[in-house]
């Protein structure tokens, strides 16, 4: 036995949906193991299974010499076995001091129930020397930048819990360049005792830090290879796979109308949306596409990005309310949190923004007036069950999304701003939603959308704007040579073909 953790055909299903279908991975001491793949490839779910956060649906998980039994595996057991997960989001313990956070759960930092000062000081000095964080032990966690919280979580796992298997789930995404490089160096230096897993979207980072890399695609670990034996372009190809485009669904280029919405950063024009076209935004998390779509919806104006209305003398979109009033309809990414109203029916959810406007006298909730608005949409969008009075919570994710699309249509906007409209939508429903976007929505309006699946953008958009590290790297038009799944993926990785 020369591995610390090993999985054999590990599987995880959420309801009917498989998240990981077959994962084989072997973590050895003294190695930094990269795990790479697109969003939804199953990387995080695999890490959650190894660290006891979720339990596998099948396959074998071996820790040391023993096979793990599902019902005995939880985060606590994993921690006792020396496995630590540093998740993407640092644990939320806002009002603990740095010291209290670090020693949470550490029995040796107490003597007879009171604080063991000398032990604590010694350990704090050790972490301080290793990470050089320059924070005070009495600082509250909430007052520290996310990246410092991440580094503290890392320090806690490595130096206090003495974890031997440390799973870093995309923590480099929230780190600044300096910290990221320091952390990656630290990983390399931490010696032969430990095994690290580095999940990352950045191919270059994996290539330079890891000894070995496992590529995950569609819930399977498709390839494990020494980084010395592959290249960035080779990995990119493995990640995307050999996807053959369904030529029938490729749409022809259309004649776009007048400019409806323009996104600018400072004085620079970034991109615009025209009538009768679908514009896609591509890029990794943190690449800037999220900021761009939120700017388009009049939300937080981060990175100095702003939306303007060319039809109204280039007026600045001041707020999300202003955006809605100016004919911009927004579908947020986190549908359950920011869009659907749980506890209300399909009809109520659909007409919520326009109900007051349509009833006479205004402001009354007139079922007889609202029903005819909703019925044709339920029919054309194939909402199932086709009952306006069904509770929204009784619908599947895909059908909830159809209701949200219906809501936007009732607003009769000039521009649809759709943040990942296929997120949390079952595979069977995705084409219908995408067809609706390209068909009915883009017929009289402009559409701006993002998707984590490049193939959806390539199939349904007229133009794709690719972001990389906060900048637009390229705007690709239908018919351009880069207008393909691997072309877009390579651009969003900053990799030259």
């Amino acid at each position, binding site marked *: 036995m020369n591995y610390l953790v090993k999985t054999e055909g590990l599987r995880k299903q959420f309801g009917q949906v498989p998240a990981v279908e077959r994962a084989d991975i072997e973590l050895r001491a003294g190695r930094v193991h990269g795990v790479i793949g697109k969003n939804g490839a199953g990387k995080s779910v695999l890490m959650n299974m190894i660290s006891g956060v979720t339990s596998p649906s099948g396959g074998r998980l071996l820790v040391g010499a023993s096979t793990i039994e599902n019902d005995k595996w939880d985060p606590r057991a994993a921690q006792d076995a020396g496995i630590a997960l540093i998740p993407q989001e640092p*644990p939320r313990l806002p009002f603990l001091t740095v010291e209290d956070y670090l020693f*949470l*759960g550490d029995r040796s930092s107490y003597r007879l129930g009171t604080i063991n000062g000398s032990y604590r000081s010694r350990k*704090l000095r050790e972490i301080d020397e290793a990470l050089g964080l*320059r924070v*005070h032990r009495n600082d509250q966690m*909430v007052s520290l930048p996310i990246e410092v919280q991440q580094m503290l979580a890392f320090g806690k796992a490595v130096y206090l819990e003495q974890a031997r298997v440390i799973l870093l789930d995309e923590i480099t995404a929230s780190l600044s360049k300096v910290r990221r490089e320091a952390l990656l160096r630290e990983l390399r230096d931490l010696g032969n005792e430990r095994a690290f897993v580095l999940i990352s979207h950045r191919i270059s980072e994996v290539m330079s830090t890891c000894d070995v890399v496992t590529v995950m695609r569609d819930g399977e670990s498709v390839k494990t290879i020494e980084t010395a034996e592959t290249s960035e372009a080779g990995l990119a190809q493995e990640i995307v796979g050999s996807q053959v485009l369904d030529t029938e669904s490729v749409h022809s280029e259309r004649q776009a109308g007048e400019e409806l919405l323009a996104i600018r950063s400072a004085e620079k024009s970034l991109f615009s949306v025209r009538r009768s076209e679908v514009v896609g935004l591509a890029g990794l998390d943190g690449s800037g596409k999220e900021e761009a779509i939120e700017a388009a919806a009049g939300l937080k104006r981060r990175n100095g990005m702003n939306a303007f209305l060319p039809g109204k003398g280039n007026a600045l979109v001041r707020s999300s309310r202003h955006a809605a009033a100016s004919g911009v309809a927004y579908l947020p990414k986190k549908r359950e949190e920011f869009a659907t109203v749980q506890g209300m029916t399909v009809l109520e959810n659909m007409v919520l923004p326009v109900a007051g406007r349509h009833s006479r006298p205004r402001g009354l909730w007139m079922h007889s007036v609202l029903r005819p608005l909703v019925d044709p949409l339920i029919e054309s969008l194939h909402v199932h069950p086709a009952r306006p009075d069904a509770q929204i919570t009784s619908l599947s994710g895909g059908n909830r999304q159809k209701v949200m699309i219906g809501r936007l249509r009732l607003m009769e906007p000039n521009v649809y701003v759709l943040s990942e409209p296929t997120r949390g939508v079952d595979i069977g429903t995705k084409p219908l939603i995408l067809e609706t976007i390209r068909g009915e929505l883009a017929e009289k309006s402009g559409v701006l959308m993002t998707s984590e699946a490049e193939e959806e953008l390539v199939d349904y958009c007229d133009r794709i704007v690719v972001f990389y590290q906060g900048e637009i790297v390229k705007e690709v038009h239908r018919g351009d040579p880069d207008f393909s799944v691997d072309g877009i993926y390579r651009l969003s990785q900053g990799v030259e073909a």
Partner: protein
Amino acid sequence: MTTTQDKREMSAVGPKNRWTRFYREVLTEHLIWPIVIVMILIGSSVPGFLTTGNFLNVLWGAASLGCMTLGLYFVLMTGRLDLSLESTLIFAPTIAVLLMTSWVVGFNPILGLVVALAVGALVGLLIGSLSNYANVNPFLITLGMLLTLRGLVVFLIPEGIYDVPEAFTWLGRTRIGDVPVASIALLFIFAIAYLVMKYTYFGKAITALGNNEQATRVAGVNVNFLVVGVFIVAGLLAALGGIIEVGRLNSVDASMGEGRILVVFAAATLGGTALTGGRGRITGVFGAVLVISGITNLMNLVGIPTALQQVMFGAILLLAILLSSVQDSLRKRWSS
């Protein structure tokens, strides 16, 4: 991570200027002390307020409220709440006094004190266990307990009891020299609580629990045990408050403490304790208890009628809520 206090300037966050840092810290973490100062300044215009004797009276009057507020503080720190404290306050001494005066002839009054505290702890144990194992919101459990215990007390002593054994009232009634024993007791339990929060596993663990229950569980902390623990502590403290109050009034009255829980919540909130759990300082709670007791004292000195005093407490609660939201936004502004 610097390991000594004096290297504060090593910190990567926060302003460099010593004075800026000081007033920001006061405004976001210790807002209660400026309020205490304002109260004293206002009080200085009232004859008889700024005297040693009156100060001791304020402390004496604060004793019972302080006990309850401290109890609620521990519960709030875990992100839970306890409405029943005002009923435990009277229920615990009622049982003990009944034991001594009518149920058992010649019952030792010292044992009576132990019984009162034990009753308080038992009430807490019951609430904590129910909230853990029946998985019911503590609001509902303690609401039920609030009504049940008060009803029991009214049933048991509809007329009240006016011949309470002297040993039982000693804690609330006696002065050593000029200093009331109750005020020493108050300072003593706050000092203990301060040390518990700062230097013990229990204090650290309940703070973590209030911040993030799941993360605390994963860290291997026995959360159920802690929840029962804080309710027991709260029950004990409420019983202690009850003993002090009974001693001060030298009687047990069925309506004692009725409606007091709202003032207790006002004090905890004014002291900077978050109702959502995980945040609050013992020093802040102490300051808030002083403020409320001081204002009561001022109103009595000036001669404001009881009904208007109620209005005043309502206003204090509103002020406390307002201040805590101001504190939150200041904290957000200065930490980014």
